[in-house]
């Protein structure tokens, strides 16, 4: 479903060109569980952002479900993000003035879903993640684990095909981190493609496929055979 060819993302810092992604070829099939690991600055977040259409490639091609997304306009990219991709961030990124339910509702609002259906789907998702008694709490009234669960609920409420998680446990204690990981893995078992960027080797080994990046290049890929 994801196919990158000669993908390059260059940044100019001062008069130096930094190759955050340096000629990457990558195939990820639908339903895979992939961990992206590597030292900081190795380009793993850039890779995730490029796959999530938040960032554009400088060179190379990117086919998402057969569509060449490098040719899409900003509005079409926004729509593709709305419909196909869910993000989970290290710092949760919940809107502080909105309640848990309202935060989960946001992507539905952006997708023009009618209010009645929105409420139904939000309460469904909140129940599924055991958050129904926290629906009207604001983020600052929730624990870290609960916040990340709200964020996952928000990422999945539109039923995307891909979940992109950038250090989802980076800000959580062990127990709630494990809780979050199990939640994401359950989604994956139900068919969602899951990409996790992590520092944590223990978390990485749980994934069926591990991609190691150094200096913008993929240096090892345990599952490359499967994707070819």
């Amino acid at each position, binding site marked *: 479903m994801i196919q990158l060819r000669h993908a390059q993302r260059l940044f100019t810092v001062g008069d130096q060109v930094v190759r955050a992604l340096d000629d990457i070829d990558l195939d990820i099939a639908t339903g895979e569980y992939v961990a992206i690991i590597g030292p900081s600055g190795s380009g793993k977040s850039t890779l995730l952002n490029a796959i999530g259409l938040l960032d554009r490639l400088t060179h190379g091609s990117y086919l998402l479900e057969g569509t060449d997304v490098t040719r899409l306009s900003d509005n079409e990219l*926004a729509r593709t993000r709305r419909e196909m991709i869910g993000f989970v961030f290290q710092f949760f990124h919940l*809107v502080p003035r909105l309640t848990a339910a309202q935060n989960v509702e946001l992507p539905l609002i*952006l997708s023009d879903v009618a209010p009645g259906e929105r409420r139904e789907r939000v309460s469904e998702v909140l129940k599924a993640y055991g958050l129904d008694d926290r629906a009207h709490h604001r983020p600052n009234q929730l624990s870290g684990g609960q916040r990340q669960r709200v964020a996952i609920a928000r990422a999945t409420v539109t039923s995307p095909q891909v979940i992109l998680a950038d250090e989802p446990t980076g800000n959580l204690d062990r127990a709630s981190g494990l809780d979050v990981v199990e939640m994401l893995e359950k989604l994956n078992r139900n068919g969602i493609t899951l990409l996790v960027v992590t520092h944590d080797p223990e978390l990485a080994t749980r994934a069926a496929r591990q991609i190691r990046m150094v200096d913008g290049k993929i240096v090892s890929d345990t599952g490359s055979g499967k994707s070819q």
Partner: protein
Amino acid sequence: MIATDVLTYAAGSVLGYRARTLLTLLAMGIGVASVVMLTALGEGARRFVTGEFQSLGTHLLIVLPGRSETTGGPPPLLGETPRDLTLDDALAIERSRAVRRIAPIAVGSAGVSYREREREVMVIGSTAAFLDVRRLKMASGRFFSTSDPRRASPVCVLGAKLKHELFGAGPAIGRWVRVGDRRFRVVGTLASEGRSIGLDLEDIVIVPVAAAQALFDSYSLFRVLVEARSDEAIPRARRDILRIIRQRHEGEDDVTVITQDAVVATFDKIFRALTLTVAGIASISLAVAGILIMNVMLVAVSQRTTEVGLLKALGASSGAIMRVFLAEAAILSLVGAAAGVAVGYAAIRFVDQAYPLLPLSTPLWAVASAVLVAMTTGLLFGVLPARRAAKLDPVAALAGR
């Protein structure tokens, strides 16, 4: 994003940042309120003054001695005083068919005393027609009768305040008062007028014009009030007056005729210009409020960079983000304008009750344009911050950069 969601979301953030919202509303409110109040004052003054002039009477012309106009010829070396306007001139004017009646006015000031009380007041000498021309009302007694205006009957009419000061609550009719060095019998007292421009009709004594002329030993009139037969007759009355006076004054145009309409129209113009000017000055504060909204919105965008990044990651288009921030600016300016209108009207009501004489009212065009200017400046100055938000790079924005 559908329109109601844009509004709800924007309203949420307006409510979410209370201090910021209150400050913006305050600025916008002060701007709109000042436009509403200042135009109300300007309009009130205009109505007051034109109302005053209209209350002088209808179809009125005022004849003044002297001519306020430069003609050719050498400048007068010696003080060339105009010819006096006399009682005979006034009576000659009355013969015009365009004129219904005239009231000659002689003015001076003298002490008026009754027993041990004495007041220095204005003495007006006129004829019986004065009452009708000036639309005055009597509180008690009668005005002096329409007999020969050349007769200096020793009768007088007192203004309400003077009557009160000389006689208190007691009766004045039939009593003799001393005006200057002559004695006059009080035949009537004027009803309290409240207000009148030019002359304070509360604190006067009115005597027959011939008596006044004798009192002040002067045969010159202060002016002559002329009431035309109708509005249409005013131009003809004016021509007749000028013709009659020219004949009587050996071909000299040495009087000035003012028509009441011209005076009213002039004041009307002056006060309209004044109202527009204050409205213009007040609307500068609206522009300032607009700039404040821009400032506040720019701060909002940089405070909420990560929120914008998140919205983008969730799939919000640039257009949707722009609409959200524009809606915020619109809500701030609209609510501010509404608050301003409310405060403005409350202040007007307050002033109205404190000074019932001043007919305060804001013209609707002023309120409408104030609100319109508030909305436009708010939106206009909201565009720049909204565009900045829409253009943020989502990756950098999410990182809080």
